């Protein structure tokens, strides 16, 4: 008797739980849809009076490099507009554009400009967009703190080390004055925008070498560990990761033809740290931009990202450029 009751109880309980949950969720989804509807009708009829109270969802996805910026903007924006939901994903720049051009998300985070084939995909799907530059990132080439022979590297030398089919095995192969010790290389994986950028700026799109001497990781912290742990190691990643690990790493000044430049906030901002400083973007779907909450969020993003950029390890644009960007969405 007892056991029968017990079993029945469990069965009932699980059924009730499921029903209750389904009912609750059903109600809620209904509720959401309703608020969304009333939201749009409100805007059509009496938008000016209702402007202060925004709600709705703004889906963002894309580059993991831009993620900290969007996260910061969303967090601050939520303090003023608590009812607007801004979920942010990290599918990578390419993955973000795929969703963006399928109309699944409102904003795509991108650590490089949109590619031609992606732009075509968007066009075919009838999606028009606005590109906004939000901050700069400086790719930092780093070696171990124990490395005492490197004072700078030229773009050609970097190319020689990393390019596909490279025969460079020891530091001596790079420059005659360097010791004949084997180079240990670390690089972000091919899916990351960071790699894309390095490939374009340093390797002339020839692709990176892939042999025993090089290790790949999508996890920048793993790259930091790798470089700091090997005296003859070299690697590259976003400026933020160098800044956080200055005690373990030594940054290599890069000579792009105009003398060796060390990446700092100033050299990245004024563009003299060429070719390794890059702009970061967000792409906004123009149709979504008509929604008041999206417009408000994007405006907020551009007007406030400057100081936030420094906080999360990136470099703000000059003020007048933010003004230009803001003008694009008026």
């Amino acid at each position: 008797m007892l056991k029968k009751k017990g079993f029945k109880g469990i069965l009932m309980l699980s059924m009730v739980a499921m029903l209750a949950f389904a009912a609750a969720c059903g109600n809620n989804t209904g509720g959401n849809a309703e608020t969304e509807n009333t939201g749009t009708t409100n805007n059509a009829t009496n938008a000016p009076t209702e402007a202060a109270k925004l709600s709705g969802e703004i889906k963002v996805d894309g580059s993991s490099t831009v993620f900290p910026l969007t996260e910061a903007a969303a967090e601050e924006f939520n303090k003023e507009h608590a009812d607007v939901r801004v979920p942010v994903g990290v599918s990578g720049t390419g993955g973000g554009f795929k969703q963006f051009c399928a109309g699944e998300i409102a904003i795509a985070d991108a650590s490089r400009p949109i590619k031609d084939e992606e732009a075509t995909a968007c066009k075919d799907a009838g999606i028009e967009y606005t590109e906004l530059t939000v901050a700069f990132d400086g790719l930092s080439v780093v070696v171990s703190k124990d490395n005492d022979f490197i004072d700078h590297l030229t773009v050609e030398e970097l190319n020689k080390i990393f390019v596909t089919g490279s025969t460079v095995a020891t530091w001596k192969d790079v420059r005659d004055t360097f010791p004949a010790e084997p180079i240990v290389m670390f690089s972000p994986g091919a899916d990351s925008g960071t790699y894309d950028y390095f490939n374009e700026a340093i390797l002339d799109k020839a692709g990176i070498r892939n042999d025993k001497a090089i290790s790949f990781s999508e996890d920048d912290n793993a790259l930091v560990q790798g470089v700091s742990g090997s005296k003859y190691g070299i690697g590259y990643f976003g400026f933020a990761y160098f800044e956080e690990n200055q005690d373990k790493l030594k940054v290599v000044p890069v000579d792009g033809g105009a003398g060796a430049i060390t990446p700092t906030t100033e050299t990245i901002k004024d563009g003299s740290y060429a070719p390794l400083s890059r702009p970061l973007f967000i792409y906004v779907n123009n149709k979504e931009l008509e929604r008041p909450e999206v417009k408000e969020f994007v405006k907020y993003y551009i007007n406030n990202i400057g100081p936030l950029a420094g906080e999360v390890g990136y470099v703000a644009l000059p003020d007048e450029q933010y003004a230009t960007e803001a003008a694009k969405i008026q």
Partner: protein
Amino acid sequence: MNIFQDANRTQIAGRRRTDWLLHILFVVATSIGVIALCALIVDILIDGIARLQPDLFTNFPSRRAEGSGMKSALVGTIYMLLIMAPISFIFGVGAAIYLEEYAKKGKITRLIQLNISTLAGVPSIVYGILGLALFVRLLALDRSLIAGALTMTLLVLPIIIVSAQEAIRAVPKSRRDASFALGATKWQTVYRSVLPSALPGVLTGVILAMSRAIGETAPLVMIGALTYVAFLPEGLKDSFTVIPIQVYNWLSKPKVEFQELAASGIIVLLALLLLMNFSAILLRNKYQKNV
């Protein structure tokens, strides 16, 4: 005689030595697992215990490590469990009852059986791809809580079916015969006689499958559980995040404080796992006494 005895003695000594050596080997084999778990727990505790404060559970994630919490991730994980548990219980146990009690033992049943065992070993990312194509795209559920929960249900179903089958098979045939002898129908026999005895085993299987699901990251990354979610899901079609994804997100941040946060997140996940496994044991003991 003497020689015979000596030969015997060395033989016995040799066997004893083999026994002793194997004994040591087995102890080492066992302790490797235990030591690995202990090392993990100690390491995680050292890193994460400081951040295990109430605000970890009450705050949403933030770009600043000090104000960051895992409220949305914890709630997301619990919601997902709440949706998954009943669905996978009904479908999993239903399939097990069919296969064990109703289905005729033939080629087709064997084929189904083989299928289920194979599915139980399929890598979880494959379920993620299936979930993305089926639930997210085809059924247009978007990257939502329900799509995630259904994908996870697919993932754990084979495990639940197999363990429920074992539990049902372990019920003595005499119980069924007694029930049939009293004129009970198949369903009455299954419901009143077989299932109550099999329930402890079934429940243990279900709970263990659930605890596998809460640690899974790959399928949810695939269907697009999001990384920064500063709200609680209120409906089945809302965006969500879960603990492992939050932990992964924290681990990939440059600041060392986030690594500590990730460690605290792992502690919470481990605690949740332990809690579930413990409740599985409790349930089993409770029902076993009644049988």
